[in-house]
């Protein structure tokens, strides 16, 4: 039961971020993409994710960032958490940071192709914003290929 609540809450958190983010017009972005926390995420981390969700809802991204950083200190090998941080940095227009964090998430994502595709989307967004159009397109292709797998 707790799990369902957690996943739903995390969905809300990042759905919110994604919807806004979708207003940045980048070809191929699908606002419905969200990543639920990994199944093995501890309740300590879930409690922080919930607070981070509240902070994002209130528009307090810096607070959300502090909370998310606490999660990666507790579970540094949890790929979803790095993904959330990447998404937040993207939302704050820190594109280089967002790319690094998304790559980190990919590095830990193992066979989670859904997560990897979403990370590539973040990279595509960021590269596009940084003016690297061909890099953005290549990243978008990777996202697409992973998504269809």
């Amino acid at each position, binding site marked *: 039961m707790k799990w369902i609540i957690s996943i739903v809450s995390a969905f809300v958190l990042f759905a919110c971020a994604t919807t806004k983010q979708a207003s940045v017009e980048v070809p191929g972005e699908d606002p419905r993409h969200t990543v639920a926390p990994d199944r093995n995420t501890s*309740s300590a981390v879930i409690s922080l994710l919930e607070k981070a969700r509240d902070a994002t809802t209130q528009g307090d991204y810096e607070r959300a960032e502090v909370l998310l950083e606490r999660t990666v*200190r507790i579970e540094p090998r949890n790929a979803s958490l790095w993904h959330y941080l990447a998404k937040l*940095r993207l939302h704050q227009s820190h594109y280089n940071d967002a790319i690094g964090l998304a790559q980190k998430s990919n590095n830990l994502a193992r066979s989670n192709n859904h997560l990897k595709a979403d990370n590539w989307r973040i990279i595509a967004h960021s590269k596009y914003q940084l003016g690297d159009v061909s890099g953005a397109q290549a990243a978008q292709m990777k996202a697409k290929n992973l998504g269809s797998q």
Partner: protein
Amino acid sequence: MARRPTRKRNPKKKVSRRVNKTRKPKRPGKSARKSDNPVLKFLRRIPWRRLFLGGSLILIVYTVYLDFVVRGQFEDKRWALPAQVYARPLELYEGLSLKADNFERELNLLNYRYAYNPTEAGMFQRHGNVFYIVTRPFTFWDVKESSQTIEVAFSGGQISAIKNRRNKKELALLRLDPVLIGGIYPLKKEDRKLVSLNDVPELLPEILVAVEDRKFYDHYGVDPIAIARAFLANIRAGKSVQGGSTITQQLVKNFFLTNERSLWRKFNEIIMAVLLDWHYEKDDILQAYINEIYLGQDGARAIHGFGLASQYYFGKPIQQLNLNQLTSLVALIRGPSYYHPDKHADRLLARRNRILEGLLEQKVISADLLARTKGLPINVLKKRQTTSRRHPAFLDLVKRQLREFYPESKLSSDGLRIFTTMNPIVQLDVEQKVKERVARLAKQRGLGNKLQSAVVIANSTSAEVIAMVGDHNPRFAGFNRALDASRPIGSLIKPVVYLSALEKSDQYNWTTRIEDKSISLKAKDGSIWTPMNYDRKSHGSVTLITAMTKSYNQATVRLGLDIGFPAINATYRKLGGPKDLPPYPAILLGAQNLTPFEVTQIYQTLAASGFRSPLRSIREVLDVDDQPLRRYPIQVKQSINSDLVNVINSGLIQVTKQGTARSLLSRLPADLHVAGKTGTTNDTRDSWFAGFTGSHVGVVWLGTDDNLSTGLTGSSGALQLWGDIFSQINTTGLALEQSDGIDIEWVDPGTGLLSKAACGNSVQLAFIHGTAPTERGECLDSGSGIQERFDRTVEWIKRIFR
């Protein structure tokens, strides 16, 4: 006797924070000017009185000047508030790997007091593996943590449960307040914690007025009767025994004047006190007094004001002090060293009791309360939080990283709250191990106190520095070798060379054979450079893995020359090398000078699978009102291919299993895989070890400041200290990551052929996908492995006895 010890005070204090709400000042000097005109006319006729007129004018001008000074200073009165520096807060959650004893150490560092029945914030009790704690409230950047009454249970080196003690509900996560590890002080090391009059217990102003200045609310800044009384008493005694200063005068003395005892100073003091009283509310003056007064000395740090004194002596905020504690602090005003709570506890107790009796006389307290309080001991903290001399190397790093954004003056005066990455338990353990190991090695080698050391420990993923030592005496704030001792890194450079080779995966893998034979090269200055191996032998054709784990110099130089400097320099810079490497052959054996901190940055990138993050010591900075000021976010940058880093790491693990660092095997738990590299420079002048686990990276350097030969190799020196530290701290093993980009194989490092775990000295190594050797070793097929031999024996026995 001096009324209170005053110290030299610079009237132009660094200003930072406004504390007093002041009403608008009245126009100055009006009353003085008013009486002038009629007198002036009268005086004009009498020439000798012109002198008097001149004198009066000077006096008036001087008073106006003093008025200007007093108002200017008091209204802008901002105390220089040193920045407060905190360790990382401990986050508690089920499953956290933490020893109960280390948890108790943390509570002790936080000055939590052991109590049979913890009722107040900052108290705890331990029953074997269960702790009952009342946590302190604390404001962080993200969340204001409130005080909670909790129960924390440990089992098997982990937290097994955290519950709210009242309703027994499980807590997912709990963050303790952080340990205060130091402050950043101005040259004059005044420290204080500002409080407003509304925040202090109501009793405090009452006690202060009753003890220091009974007529405070009635007089005009000075109390002529008190002065006369003091004057008579002093004449009678033949020396100065009484002060007669009002609270206002004491404040003036502290604010504006020096400790000089002269009539002129007294004159100034009286005028300024009257002016201060004229312009400002009594309560503003009292509040300033409460924050200004000097109440003790902690090394070089001066404890000012009741807010800080309360924390310093009793470990509690001023709001929580009782009558006993408040009167004890008031008793200190007369002379914090004369009434020192440790050295002269009897004097302090006697003075407190005199004050208590005085309070009864003035009906501030009841006879009953007096009787109850008089018998109580003054329990000041035994181990007070002294912050002035702790962890100088780490604080040095924090200051340097802060200075990129804040000028020194702001750091020492704005009361910033700095949240750092230090793990205080690891820091203390590292300090202890450095002291022990350096003393032992220095004794063995007859180096006296010349053997020096520096250590940096960081989290590998977040690149947060958790401990740092820059001297063999970790409390000594001198040359910080961790940041400033730039020394040749020796073989610590080799992973950079081998990584550059492995990057050319079509040419090199771990089993590629290279020549370890003597080589002579022309050095930059035209001389001939002939590198030798440590054992003075050449080993002929060896595999890459053998050359690296055994740290063969001749093979490495040949390999490096083959790859070329540009490729090696590119790898070096990607890993975080601070500057380009100069292109000469000795660089291949680590002629480059780097500080331990710079080496840590390079190895952090390896430890984090190629994700480089700048080493950080600060997480967040809040201002004096707990408002967010600046964050130092976690930043990661994929600077080098992860698969490639995993390949080199698989080799660095072998260094600690079969190579120059194999002595670690017997020192660390069997399941704790670590990777690393030893480094020794010419004539054993520098002894290095840089290594990492799955969660931490650590670099140790040993040597002397004047470049003596220590007789210590990387293995016999730095590695030993590294082992001391890593067998003590809580860390996780390094696992070889499986990924699509690499193949993990068992090979024989001697032949370079495929092998298996059961075969003699085979090792597990990573290869870039598709580049692993395909040739099968004899052991693999002949089944000469121990398991196979055993199986065959069993089969044979079965057959015989069928």
